[in-house]
C-alpha cells in the first residue's frame, strides 16, 4: 500500500507576485526538500529499504518480544506499593501554602537597566519568571531573562573557590582575598548595570582604600553610544526613546526591539496596530495610530523584520549614510563619494518623512562615538529631543566608574584586579588602549580575582576565583526602564551552591579584616541585606519613624520598585564637533566587511551553558547549538559556496551516519539525494582572516544581507572535547581539547569569533575570506522542520493600494482589509464540511443520551489570537513555554533529525516581490542588495497547536488519548498515549511533538547517551529538576505532546472562580442551600487568565481569553462561532476584526487560535512602496 501524498500547491512560473520561502532549499524548490517536508518526523532510519531490511526488523522484534516476556515473569515478584512519605515543614513558613505558588517581586540586573520580574515559587523553589506588571517599565520577559532561571539550577555552576583553576578551601580563599587586597591598590571591574547600594559601597571602599579604582566592562554593551551620551549629557547619562511619541523611526543597524534596548518598546508595538493599543479603534482609520519603521542594516535583525522599508548596507557604509542624512539636515557635509541613485533617493524620501514630524534616528550602540555624535545632531535637527521622543536621564548618585580605556591607563598602578563583571574578559580578550596589548597582557603580572557563577576561561585563569550567587539568590537593587525607577533585587532561595553575593564581596572589602558571609548557616543574615536596606532607608525613602521605615521597606519588597525614586533629566552640554571618516565600500566578495554580531542565544557568550537558549532557534537563521558565518546569496555565489549549499548535496548519508547511533543511515530511497538543508545539512567551511588572526567557520546563506558583508555572532567556541571532530566530514580540523571552561551544554558549540575581533568593537573592513575545500560542518537548523509551506499562512496587507494588473483590480487598504480571509486557497477553495458532529454521544447509566454537546461548557470557551503586526519572531514565547510546560532539551543531533520538542514553532518566511519579465532563473535568490526599491521582507509566524474544534488528530487516536474538552481544548492524556504517532501524521499544522527518547530522564547532551539505553547516564533528580512546574506532567519516552493552552493555568482559574463563588456564599451569611449559581458566576474575571507565551511577549502579540466573557479583550479580535448555524454558512467565522483569519481555513478544522494579518505602513513617496506587504495577497 502506498502512502497518498499531498501535492503542494504549485505557483505557476512567470506569474507576477511575491515569492515566499523559508530556506534556500525551498527557494530553489529542490526535490530533496519536497521529500523532507512530506514526513512529519523526517528520519532516514525509519525508512525500510528492501525485503532484507524488513525481514531483519521482524526477527529483531520477535527476539525482543521473547526477552521481554521472560523478564515480565521475573518482574512480577514485587508489585507492592512502595512506601512514600509526607514531610511537612517543621515550622509553618510565611506565605507558603503547600501546592500553591508564592510570587515575589524581584528584578534581573542588566546593562540596559534592571528587568522587573515576579518569580513564581513552589515550596521555596523558584520555577518561572513573569514580568512585574505593576512596574511601568515591565514589558514581557525576553528569552534570555526567561532562561536565566535554568542558569540558577545549572549543575555545572561554579561552586568552589579556585586558585589558578584548582579548588581550594574556603578559609584559604578568604585569607588570599585579604592578602591580595591588603595594599588597597586594586581595581574592580563591574558590569554595565547600575546599582545604588553598590555605588554606596564603592564610596565606602574608596574611603578606606585611596588607591582603589573602579571600572565597568561588558563585551558588547555598546561603548560608542555610552561615550557619546556621556560627552553630550555628562557621565552616566542614558538616552532613551519614548516610542509613544515616535511616529517615524529610522533604525541604523539598531536592533532596539531585541538586543539593543533603546527604551521601552511597549509603545512601539501599540503603534504597530492599526486599531491602536487596546484594539479599540477602527482599523480603517490607521493614520493617527500607525508608526513607520525604516531600517538600514547589514544583516537581518528582528527589528529589520518589523520594518516597513528595509535596506541592506555594509556596516562600513553606515557612517557615510549618516553623513548623507546630516547633509540633508544641514548639520554636516555630504559624503565625498556618493551613493547610487536608488540609495540616495531612498535616503532622501526617508529623511523627508522623518522631518515631517515625530521622526527619530536610532543608531546601533556599538558604532563609534563620532557616528553617535552626528546622529545626535540629526536628531536635534529633527526635533526628537524637543518633542520628547528622546530624553537623557541620569541617576542622582552614581559611582564614577571608568571605562576600559581608563583601565588600560591605570593598569600600571594596580596590583590586583577584581573582575565582578558578567562578561568573560579572558575569553573575549579585547585590545585595550592605543597599542595592541590585550586584556590578558595588562593583567599578566597582576593578581586576578574573579567573581562569577561560571567556571569559564576567566575563572580558570584567575589567581582566585570566588563562586558567585545567582541574582535569584542575591540582595541588590537597580534602576529599570526609561525613567530609571528604583527596583529591588531580592533572593528567592538561599545560595544553592554556596555562592557569594556581589554586595557581600564588596562589604567584605570595606572591612578591616576581610571575611566573606557564609550562607550555609541559614539563620545568619546576609550583610547584603543590611546594605540594601540601609541604603534604601537613607537615600530612597529617608526619614520617618521606625514603624514607617519598616512599612516602606515591606512595600518595596512587595511591589519590587519605588516609582518616586528615579533618574533625573540630564541636560545637553555643548554639541560635539565630530566628523565621520569615510570608509571604503566593500566591493569584492573575498574582501568583505565582517560584523561581529551579538547573538540571539548566548548574548556575548555568557549563556553558552544555557541549554534552553542554545536550543532555541536563532530568530533569523533558525540555527541551533552553533554560530556560523552568514553571507548573502550573491556573496556566497561569488565565493563559490552557493552551489554547495543550495544545489544538491552529494552526500547520500545522513549526518548522524558515523556517530554509530543508527545502523540505517541512508538518506531516503529515491535516486535523488538530499539537498543541503535536510538531514545531510553540511555547511561548507571558510577561512576568515582579519589582520593576522584567522578562523575557520561554517557558512550559512542568509537572505536580506548586504552584499560583500559577512556576519559572525560572538560568544561560541569556548571549549571542545574529543568528539568535536565528529561534526566534520572531510579532513579533521586542527583544534585543542579543552573542556575546563564550558559545561556539557556549551562544549563543541560553534566557533570563537572573539579571536578575530581584536580592537574593533562592532565590525572590521577589508578582511579576507576563502573557501576551505576539504572540510564541511554539520548544522542543526529547524527552518524546514514541520513545514507547511506553499500556502498563504503568514498574511500581509499594506496601507498602500495594490498595483492593478491583468489578474486583479487595484485594491485600496480598506478592500485589502476586507479580503484578508481570501488569500491563498481560501480565495477559491470551498471549505471542507467536517463530519465531526457537534452533538456528543455520552450516555448515562440507563442508556439515555446526556444532553451535553460537543463544547458544552457555558462558562468558558478558550481562544487565542496572534497579531502578526506586532510579532517580531524573537522566540521569547518559545522559551517561556519551555519553562512553563517542562519541555525537555534534546541536543544538536536530535534537533537535526527534526525531533526538537518546542511546542511553539516560530516559522519565519522571507518574501520578495518579483517583477514581470524576469525569468525564473534570473531573479532567483539574487536579490542584489543594491535594489533598495525591491524589498526583501521577513515575516515570522508562531505556530503551536491551534486547538481545532474539529480536530483531525482526535479521530485517528486508537486509544482516545487526545480528546476534546467541553471548553474547547484539544487535550492530551499523556498517561494514556501509547505513541502510535497517528495524530501527528494527521495534524495539518504539524504542531505535535513526540518523545523519541527519555529526554527528561537521560541526559541528551552527553555523547551518544540516549543510545545507551539503561546504561546511559541519568539526569533525574539533578538540580535542573527543581525548576519543573509541579502542575504539569513530565512526559516520558513514547508519548506525544503539544500545546494545551497552559491547561494547568486554566484549571486553576476555573477552580478560583468556583472558590470565589464559595467565598461570596460565606460572606452573605445566608445558608448555602438558598444560593443559586449561574454560568456567569463561574466565569473567571475578564482578562484574568494569561498563558505563558502571552506573558512573555513584549509585543503583546498574543491575546488569550474566554469567548463567552463579553468583557474579555479577546472579544475585540475573535468571537465564538455560531454553533447553531448550518455549516457552510459560517465558513468565514464570526470574527469581529477584519484582520483576523484562520490558518488553513479551507480544510475545515475550525481552529481556536486565529491570526491577525500584518499591516505594513510604507511611505508612498518611496520607490517600490506598492510592493511592500504583498507576501500572500496574490497567492491563489
Amino acid at each position, binding site marked *: 500500500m502506498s502512502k497518498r501524498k499531498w501535492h503542494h500547491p504549485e505557483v505557476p512560473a512567470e506569474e507576477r507576485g511575491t515569492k515566499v520561502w523559508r530556506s534556500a532549499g525551498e527557494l530553489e524548490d529542490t526535490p530533496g526538500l519536497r521529500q523532507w517536508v512530506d514526513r512529519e518526523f523526517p528520519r532516514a532510519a525509519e525508512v525500510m529499504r528492501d525485503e532484507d531490511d524488513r525481514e531483519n526488523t521482524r526477527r529483531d522484534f520477535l527476539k525482543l518480544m521473547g526477552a521481554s516476556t521472560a523478564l515480565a515473569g521475573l518482574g512480577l515478584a514485587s*508489585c507492592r*506499593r512502595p*512506601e*512514600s*512519605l*509526607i*514531610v*511537612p*515543614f*517543621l*515550622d*509553618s513558613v510565611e506565605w507558603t*501554602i*503547600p*501546592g*500553591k505558588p508564592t510570587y515575589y517581586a524581584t528584578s534581573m540586573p542588566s546593562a540596559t537597566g534592571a528587568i522587573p520580574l515576579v518569580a513564581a515559587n513552589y515550596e521555596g523553589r523558584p520555577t518561572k519568571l513573569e514580568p512585574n506588571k505593576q512596574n511601568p517599565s515591565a514589558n514581557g520577559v525576553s528569552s534570555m531573562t526567561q532562561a536565566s532561571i535554568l542558569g540558577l539550577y545549572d549543575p555545572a555552576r561554579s561552586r568552589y573557590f579556585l586558585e589558578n583553576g584548582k579548588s581550594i578551601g574556603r578559609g584559604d580563599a578568604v585569607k588570599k582575598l585579604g592578602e591580595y587586597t591588603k595594599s588597597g591598590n586594586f581595581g574592580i571591574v563591574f558590569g554595565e548595570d547600575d546599582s545604588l547600594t553598590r555605588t554606596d559601597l564603592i564610596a565606602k571602599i574608596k574611603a578606606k582604600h585611596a588607591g582603589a579604582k573602579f571600572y565597568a566592562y561588558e563585551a558588547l554593551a555598546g561603548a560608542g553610544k555610552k561615550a557619546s551620551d556621556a560627552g553630550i549629557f555628562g557621565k552616566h547619562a542614558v538616552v532613551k526613546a519614548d516610542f509613544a511619541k515616535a511616529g517615524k523611526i529610522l533604525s541604523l543597524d539598531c536592533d532596539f526591539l531585541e538586543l539593543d534596548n533603546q527604551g521601552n518598546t511597549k509603545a512601539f508595538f501599540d503603534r504597530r496596530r492599526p486599531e491602536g493599543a487596546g484594539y479599540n479603534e477602527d482599523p480603517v482609520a490607521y493614520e493617527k495610530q500607525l508608526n513607520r519603521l525604516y531600517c538600514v542594516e547589514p544583516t537581518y535583525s528582528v527589528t529589520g523584520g518589523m520594518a516597513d522599508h528595509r535596506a541592506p548596507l555594509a556596516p562600513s557604509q553606515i557612517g557615510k549614510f549618516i553623513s548623507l542624512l546630516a547633509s540633508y539636515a544641514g548639520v554636516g557635509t555630504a559624503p565625498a563619494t556618493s551613493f547610487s541613485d536608488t540609495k540616495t533617493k531612498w535616503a532622501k524620501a526617508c529623511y523627508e518623512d522623518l522631518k515631517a514630524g515625530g521622526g527619530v534616528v536610532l543608531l546601533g550602540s556599538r558604532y563609534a562615538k563620532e557616528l553617535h555624535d552626528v546622529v545626535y545632531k540629526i536628531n536635534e535637527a529633527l526635533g526628537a529631543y524637543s518633542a520628547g521622543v528622546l530624553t537623557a536621564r541620569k541617576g542622582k548618585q552614581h559611582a564614577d566608574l571608568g571605562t576600559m580605556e581608563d583601565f588600560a591607563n591605570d593598569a600600571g598602578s594596580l596590583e590586583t584586579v577584581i573582575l565582578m563583571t558578567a562578561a568573560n574578559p579572558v575569553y573575549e580578550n579585547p585590545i585595550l588602549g592605543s597599542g595592541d596589548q590585550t586584556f590578558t597582557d595588562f593583567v599578566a603580572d597582576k593578581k586576578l580575582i574573579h567573581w562569577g557563577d561560571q567556571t569559564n576561561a576567566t575563572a580558570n585563569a584567575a589567581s582566585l576565583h570566588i563562586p558567585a550567587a545567582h541574582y535569584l539568590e542575591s540582595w541588590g537593587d537597580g534602576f529599570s526602564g526609561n525613567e530609571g525607577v528604583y527596583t529591588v533585587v531580592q533572593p528567592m532561595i538561599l545560595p544553592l551552591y554556596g555562592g557569594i553575593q556581589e554586595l557581600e564581596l564588596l562589604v567584605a572589602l570595606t572591612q578591616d579584616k576581610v571575611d566573606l558571609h557564609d550562607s550555609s548557616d541559614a539563620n545568619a543574615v546576609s550583610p547584603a541585606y543590611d546594605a540594601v536596606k540601609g541604603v534604601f532607608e537613607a537615600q530612597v525613602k529617608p526619614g520617618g519613624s521606625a514603624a514607617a521605615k519598616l512599612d516602606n521597606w515591606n512595600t518595596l519588597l512587595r511591589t519590587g520598585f519605588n516609582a518616586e525614586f528615579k533618574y533625573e533629566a540630564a541636560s545637553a552640554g555643548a554639541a560635539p564637533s565630530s566628523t565621520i571618516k569615510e570608509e571604503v565600500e566593500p566591493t569584492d566578495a573575498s574582501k568583505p566587511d565582517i560584523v561581529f554580531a551579538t547573538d540571539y542565544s548566548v548574548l556575548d557568550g555568557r549563556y553558552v551553558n544555557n541549554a534552553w537558549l542554545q536550543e532555541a532557534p536563532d530568530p533569523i537563521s533558525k540555527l541551533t547549538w552553533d554560530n556560523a558565518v552568514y553571507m548573502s546569496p550573491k556573496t556566497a555565489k561569488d565565493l563559490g559556496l552557493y552551489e554547495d549549499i543550495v544545489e544538491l548535496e552529494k552526500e547520500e548519508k545522513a549526518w548522524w551516519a558515523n556517530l554509530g547511533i543508527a545502523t540505517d543511515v541512508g538518506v531516503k530511497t529515491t535516486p535523488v539525494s538530499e539537498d543541503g538543508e535536510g538531514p545531510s545539512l553540511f555547511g561548507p567551511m571558510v577561512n576568515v582572516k582579519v589582520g593576522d588572526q584567522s578562523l575557520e567557520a561554517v557558512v550559512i546563506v542568509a537572505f536580506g544581507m548586504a552584499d560583500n558583508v559577512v556576519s559572525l555572532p560572538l560568544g561560541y567556541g569556548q571549549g571542545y572535547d574529543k568528539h568535536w571532530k565528529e561534526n566534520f566530514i572531510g579532513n579533521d580540523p586542527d583544534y585543542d581539547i579543552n573542556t575546563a571552561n564550558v559545561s556539557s551544554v556549551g562544549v563543541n558549540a560553534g566557533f570563537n569569533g572573539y579571536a578575530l575581533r581584536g580592537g574593533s568593537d562592532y565590525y572590521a573592513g577589508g578582511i579576507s575570506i576563502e573557501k576551505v575545500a576539504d572540510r564541511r560542518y554539520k548544522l542543526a537548523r529547524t527552518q524546514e522542520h514541520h513545514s507547511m509551506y506553499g500556502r498563504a499562512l503568514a498574511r500581509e496587507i499594506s496601507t498602500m493600494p495594490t498595483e492593478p494588473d491583468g489578474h486583479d483590480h487595484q485594491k485600496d487598504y480598506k478592500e485589502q482589509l476586507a479580503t484578508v480571509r481570501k488569500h491563498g486557497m481560501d480565495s477559491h477553495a470551498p471549505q471542507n464540511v467536517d463530519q465531526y458532529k457537534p452533538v456528543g454521544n*455520552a450516555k*448515562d*447509566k440507563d442508556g439515555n443520551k446526556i444532553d451535553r454537546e460537543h463544547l458544552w*461548557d457555558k462558562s468558558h470557551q478558550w481562544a487565542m489570537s496572534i497579531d502578526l503586526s506586532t510579532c517580531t519572531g524573537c522566540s521569547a514565547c518559545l522559551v517561556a513555554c519551555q519553562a512553563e510546560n517542562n519541555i525537555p532539551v534534546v541536543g544538536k543531533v536530535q534537533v537535526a533529525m527534526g525531533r526538537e520538542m518546542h511546542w511553539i514553532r516560530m516559522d519565519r518566511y522571507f518574501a520578495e516581490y518579483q517583477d514581470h519579465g524576469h525569468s525564473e532563473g534570473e531573479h532567483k535568490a539574487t536579490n542584489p542588495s543594491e535594489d533598495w526599491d525591491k524589498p526583501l521582507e521577513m515575516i515570522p509566524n508562531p505556530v503551536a497547536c491551534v486547538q481545532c474544534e474539529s480536530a483531525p488528530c482526535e479521530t485517528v487516536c486508537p486509544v*482516545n*488519548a487526545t*480528546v*476534546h*474538552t*467541553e471548553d474547547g*481544548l484539544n*487535550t*492530551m*492524556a*499523556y*498517561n*494514556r498515549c501509547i505513541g502510535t504517532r497517528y495524530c501527528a501524521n494527521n495534524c495539518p499544522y504539524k504542531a505535535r511533538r513526540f518523545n523519541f527518547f527519555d529526554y527528561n530522564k537521560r541526559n541528551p547532551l552527553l555523547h551518544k547517551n540516549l543510545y545507551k539505553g539503561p546504561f546511559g547516564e541519568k539526569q533525574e533528580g539533578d538540580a535542573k529538576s527543581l525548576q519543573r512546574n509541579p*502542575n*504539569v*506532567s513530565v512526559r516520558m519516552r513514547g508519548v506525544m505532546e503539544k500545546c*494545551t493552552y497552559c*491547561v*494547568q493555568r486554566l*484549571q*486553576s482559574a476555573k*477552580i478560583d472562580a*468556583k*472558590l470565589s*463563588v*464559595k467565598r461570596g*456564599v*460565606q460572606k452573605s451569611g445566608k*445558608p*448555602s*442551600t*438558598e*444560593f*443559586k*449559581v*449561574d*454560568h456567569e*458566576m*463561574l466565569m473567571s474575571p475578564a482578562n484574568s487568565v494569561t498563558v505563558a507565551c502571552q506573558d512573555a511577549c513584549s509585543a503583546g502579540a498574543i491575546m488569550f481569553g474566554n469567548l463567552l466573557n463579553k468583557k474579555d479583550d479577546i472579544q475585540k479580535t475573535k468571537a465564538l462561532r455560531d454553533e447553531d448555524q448550518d455549516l457552510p454558512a459560517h465558513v468565514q467565522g464570526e470574527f469581529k476584526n477584519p484582520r483576523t483569519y484562520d490558518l488553513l481555513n479551507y480544510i475545515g478544522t475550525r481552529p481556536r487560535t486565529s491570526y491577525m494579518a500584518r499591516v505594513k505602513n510604507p511611505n508612498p513617496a518611496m520607490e517600490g512602496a506598492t510592493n511592500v506587504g504583498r507576501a500572500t495577497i496574490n497567492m491563489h
Partner: protein
Amino acid sequence: MANYFPRWTNLVPLKIAVCIGALAIGVVTAFTYYATPKAQRVGYMPDQPIPYDHELHVTQLGLDCRHCHSFVEKSGHANVPTANTCANCHVKGGIKSDSERLAPLFDAIESGKPIKWVRVHKAPDYVFFNHSAHLGRGISCIECHGQVDEMRVVYHAKNLSMGMCIECHRNPEDALRPLEEVFNLKYSAADYLKKNQSAADQVTAYMSANNLDLELDDKGDAQKAMGLMLKDHWNVQPKESCFTCHR
C-alpha cells in the same frame, strides 16, 4: 487405515477447554484480588512515627479537620500539619508532653529535622486532584477518605480508583451537601432537612417542579433529593473529559 488416535484422545479437547477456562477464571480472579486498587489500597494502614488518633482528636475533643489540614480549602494539596501546629497544644510541659508517643515530635523540634509521616492516600503522578475545588462545591472529606473521625489509626478506606472518581462525577447528587456541612463527618441529609425548614422547602419545591417522587424521611432519598437540588441550583457540572484530572 490405522487408527492413529487412541480412544482416550476423544476427551482431550474438552480437557484442554476446561483447563483453559479454569486458568482464565483463575487469572481474572487473581487480578481482581491482587492487582486492582480495591485490593491493593483498601485497608492500607501503615505505622506512623507518632500514632496520631483521629478518633480522639475529632470525635472526642471536637477538632475541625481544618485545624491541622489548614490549607485544604485554599490549595489543591491537603497539607499535613507542621510540627509547630502539634506543639500549639503539646508544648513541652503542656498536654501529654511526657508521653513517649510524642517523643518524635520533641525530637523533631529540637533537632530541626521534620517528622516523616507515612503517606496513606496517594494519587498517581499524572492525576492532578484538587482538594479545594471539591470542598468548595459541597463534596465532603468522607466521600474519598471514609469516616476518618472514627479511625484510631488512619487507613485507606475507599479504593480511590479512576472508576470511583468517574462514578461520582457522573452522579454528584449522591455526594453533594450544603457548604456548611462539608466538614461535618456525621452529616445526614435527612437529619439536616428536618432541622432546616428553609432547605426542606427548597428541596420540596425542587421535587415538585421536577416531578420527583422521593421520601425525605428516607436516608438515601433525602440525599438524592438534596443532591439533585444543589446540583441544579449551584450549576454543578462535573467534567468527565480526561484533562479534568490528567494534563
